[in-house]
């Protein structure tokens, strides 16, 4: 089995250049590639396009990359919770493309699966549909949407093996599997890296074929945005 192991996040991101298109997994701060983001912050990068459902918060996740002014453009579905983001957007420093969350997920899935375009009902009659082809199927209107692909996809999984197979945990799966497939070069960071053969082939969420490099991350903070507790 092909061994995809590399040492750490620093090695993982060393070939990422300015003006690259990146996909970063996660929903809010859940399932984000913390180690890769930290390593990117150490590099003198500019003009990145980041495709990610959210843009982190002011002091964590992609928010830190925004602070360093590495990001030229964000492609996201929801970008609340972030003041620096709002400032850069309103001042015109940052380009933003907002996409319905399901369309974002499906465009990324299409990128990995070799589907250059598809029709979806989301956004018909709204700003999102402006300039896009509209077509009727069985009496309902749909928009034509294109695939999304990236130069590098940075994904985070719970467990992984040296062959690049990944298993996510809970709702930290979210955008990670589709992004793993849609990156020309996909880098996976995992909480636990095991030898090929130790994961149940039937329980794998991302087959290793999509993953170019894998490493075991460290010091996961896993910050919680809304810590809601029930008392008993």
């Amino acid at each position, binding site marked *: 089995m092909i061994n995809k192991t590399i040492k750490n996040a620093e090695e993982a991101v060393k070939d990422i250049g300015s003006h690259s298109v990146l996909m970063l997994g996660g*929903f*809010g*701060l*859940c*399932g984000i590639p913390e180690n890769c983001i930290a390593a990117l912050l150490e590099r003198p990068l500019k003009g990145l396009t980041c495709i990610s*459902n959210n843009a982190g918060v002011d002091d964590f996740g992609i928010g830190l990359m925004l602070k360093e002014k590495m990001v030229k453009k964000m492609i*996201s*579905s*929801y*970008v*609340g*919770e972030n003041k620096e983001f*709002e400032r850069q*957007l*309103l001042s015109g420093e940052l380009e*933003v493309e*907002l996409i*319905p*969350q*399901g*369309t*974002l*997920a*499906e465009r*990324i*899935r299409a990128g990995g699966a070799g589907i250059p375009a598809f029709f*979806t*009902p*989301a*956004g*018909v*009659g*709204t*700003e*999102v549909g402006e300039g896009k082809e509209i077509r009727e199927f069985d009496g309902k209107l749909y928009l034509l949407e294109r695939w999304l692909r990236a130069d590098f996809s940075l994904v985070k999984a*719970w467990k992984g093996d040296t062959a690049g197979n990944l298993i*996510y*945990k*809970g*709702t*930290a*799966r*979210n*955008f*990670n*599997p*589709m992004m793993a497939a849609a990156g020309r070069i996909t880098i996976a960071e995992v909480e636990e890296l095991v030898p090929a053969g130790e994961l149940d082939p039937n329980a794998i*969420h991302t087959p290793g074929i999509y993953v170019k490099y894998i490493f075991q991350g460290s010091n996961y903070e*896993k*910050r*919680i*945005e*809304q*810590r*809601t*507790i*029930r*008392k*008993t």
Partner: protein
Amino acid sequence: MLSKEKIAQRIAKEIKNGQYINLGIGIPTLVANYIPDELEVVLQSENGLLGIGSFPTEDQVDADLINAGKQTISMVKGSALFDSAESFGMIRGGHVHLTILGAMEVSENGDISNWKIPGKMVKGMGGAMDLVSAARQIIVAMQHCSNEGKSKLLKECRLPITGVKCVRKIVTDLAVLEILPEGGFKLIERAPGVSASTIQEKTEGKLIIPSEVPEMEFE
């Protein structure tokens, strides 16, 4: 006038046994607290979970298990986890029966605005456009008027819209209304102590008032 909790409680009465339901952020999230125990329903979280449970106890908190509002949650027995493409496939494919979500404006033909205030707020639409484009039934939970007292039930939406002709039912702090296929808000129920004429005053869009409009009932 109803509190947020009462709006949620009233909406809960719309839920039917066996439904799969997506609850939006805000008042819709509160609806979960009022679903009668005898109903078997499943709550979907668009970030990848079927079977949302209650908030976790202190020692159950798991950063890897949140709802679409980024709140920590738990899972009920029989839950399933999946990725965002599968989640929205579920939504787009019409497998979710009921979507309950908030709105900034609703128009008399069922358009809804809830994602953007030009020049002021740029949070994004999240999953709302997908949900309203595909759910079999959409109920909106909202305040009847803005903080400035202006009606949010309009002839036409002024804010950028989230979806076209998709809202069927609205529960506000003043009333329950249905949107008629030919357009117009039909008044179904009044909040306790609120008169039809008050509701008329606070509704900019076309309001249809039947001869009898009962008050909402709460257990």
